């Protein structure tokens, strides 16, 4: 048995291997693009899951953090002529900084009011992206962002870019797992269930809420800079309310408070429209129906459903001997 503190490392290594092998099973190079976008979305979902799944604080404006970072690196690496790593650093910092500023007054709000405030913030950022044409290029987008090159290596091929995204994603997953399996993770889950009980355990709830909000914005920021240097083009329409909602759906559909679930939800929702292409315009109906069906038949998300199936298999195998220590959160 591995030492308890290295268990997450093993899981992340397993995950990294799966990501590494995934392209070899693809029938066509084209699907690499979907994997890259899926990985980028999974990165945002991971961060949002820390905020929504673990700490129980909703954000309907996360697309804004994603977009802010993307635009920051776009402007920095083209108009300001800064090196790409500097631009990426600026992008992530900008997202985190804005989250810190907006988080302080906003996170005092609860429930639907918090949802509204984050939603409003997202819309304001979206409008600013649309209207500051001199900086952002306005609604028709920002052209000419350089493709990523780091330490003299240029990620020109999609496959190389995919491996970069996969590496970042695996690291981020390990980061999340380790964070969750520590007193910080317990504090976050405590805030989710009972703020007063968390306080009496000495948890600084305002501080932790702000911390996890900034952290999840930074995850979105990392995703944003990766997105900008992959697509080499950004437009405000990718960062609107619609995408914010989709991110929340990814987390919930995947399974709240599950690191694997959030990522599964992200990959699933990114790939779904592709799988539905054959249905042409009817795809929107199928997409909506799948969404409804998922919450109806998998109330605990994909992670919960998978856990259920696993448990059933285990029970069959053990011949109905009650399993020991099934408890604990998933992931």
């Amino acid at each position, binding site marked *: 048995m591995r030492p308890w503190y290295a268990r997450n490392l093993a899981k992340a290594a397993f995950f990294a291997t799966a990501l590494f092998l995934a392209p070899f099973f693809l029938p066509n190079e084209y699907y690499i693009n979907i994997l890259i976008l899926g990985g980028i979305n999974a990165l945002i979902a991971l961060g949002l899951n820390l905020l*929504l799944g673990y700490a*129980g604080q*909703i954000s309907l404006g996360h697309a804004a953090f994603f977009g802010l970072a993307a635009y920051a690196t776009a402007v920095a690496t083209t108009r300001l002529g800064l090196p790409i790593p500097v631009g990426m650093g600026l992008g992530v910092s900008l997202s985190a900084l804005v989250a810190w500023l907006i988080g302080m*007054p*906003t996170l*005092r*709000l*609860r*429930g*639907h*009011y918090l*949802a*509204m*405030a984050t*939603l*409003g*913030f997202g*819309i*304001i950022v979206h*409008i*600013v992206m*649309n*209207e500051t044409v001199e900086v952002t290029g306005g609604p028709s987008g920002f052209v000419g962002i350089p493709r990523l090159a780091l330490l003299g290596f240029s990620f020109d091929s999609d496959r190389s870019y995919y491996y970069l995204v996969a590496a970042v994603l695996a690291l981020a997953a390990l980061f999340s797992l380790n964070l969750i399996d520590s007193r910080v993770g317990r504090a976050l889950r405590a805030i989710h269930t009972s703020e007063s009980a968390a306080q009496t355990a000495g948890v600084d709830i305002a501080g932790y809420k702000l911390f996890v909000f900034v952290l999840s914005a930074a995850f979105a920021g990392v995703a944003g800079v990766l997105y900008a240097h992959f697509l080499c083009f950004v437009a405000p329409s990718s960062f609107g*309310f*619609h995408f914010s*909602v989709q991110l*929340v*759906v990814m987390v*919930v*559909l995947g399974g*709240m408070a599950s690191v694997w679930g959030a990522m599964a939800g992200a990959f699933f929702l990114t790939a779904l429209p592709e799988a539905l292409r054959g249905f042409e*315009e*009817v795809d*929107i*109906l199928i*997409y*909506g*129906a*799948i*969404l*409804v069906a*998922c*919450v*109806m038949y998998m*109330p605990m998300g994909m992670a919960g459903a998978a856990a259920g199936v696993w448990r059933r298999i285990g029970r069959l195998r053990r011949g109905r001997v009650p399993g020991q220590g099934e408890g604990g959160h998933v992931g």
Partner: protein
Amino acid sequence: MFAAAAQYLVSGLTVGATYGLTGLGFTMIFNTTGIINFAQGEFVMLGGMMSVFFRTWLGLDLFSAILLAVAVTALVGAAMERLTIRPIQGSSPINLVIATIGVSILIRGAAMLLWGKDTFSLPPFGGTAPIPLFGAAVQPQSLWALAITLALLTALKLFFSASIHGKAMLACACNRKAAHLMGISVARMSLFSFALSAFTGAVGGAILAPITMTSYDVGMMLGLKGFAACILGGLGNPFGAAVGGLLIGIMESFGAGYVSSAYKDAFAFVVLLLLLFVRPSGLFGKSGAERV
């Protein structure tokens, strides 16, 4: 100067009436079931689109077309509750919200396939010549919209305070368990609240179609503004939602007039955010509102 301000006010009130009516629908469902129904905007869309199509397809007169559209939308609302909300009653609030998002996508998709992607217009209920009022030009349809909104508000007020159904719905709002123990069928009230708010939304859609026109995808934006209206007014307070809607409409129109038309939506949301920072439960909300 004054004439311009009066014009902004009139425009703001007209647009605000839509937001208010949508917000009202949100409130009714939230009060009885605790759900924020993201498909509320689609009810408004259905009200407008079906009025248009019953009029042109079935050749009905305007009034009957609207009546039929409103009735069918109420049925859609009831069906939505029966088929998607009822089966997952005990689910977490966020799951229920996602279910309503799914339904809104379904309704929007169905509307698109049925009626196409074009924008449609409905003739005004009566009169087209603008009425001058304090230097502002008022469309007769704006007066219709405001009058019907007011009438609907009054009727709902009466319904909640005088009828047994209305009182039962309020009881569910206060305490679902207690209401259940009192012999009130919470499930029926939930069904009823969806039908009623679909009805309200559809009325809104029908009276505004002549002014704002309608297409299969107007629901999302309206849903957003309606939600903002409820939050501004204080979630759970129907009067607050109506006032919130009017205020957002006015803020947008004054924002466009005096600040910048490019940032008018941002202006309304900035004011909303600042207000929430000062009053975390909206204008007329109960303080210490519980978390989801």
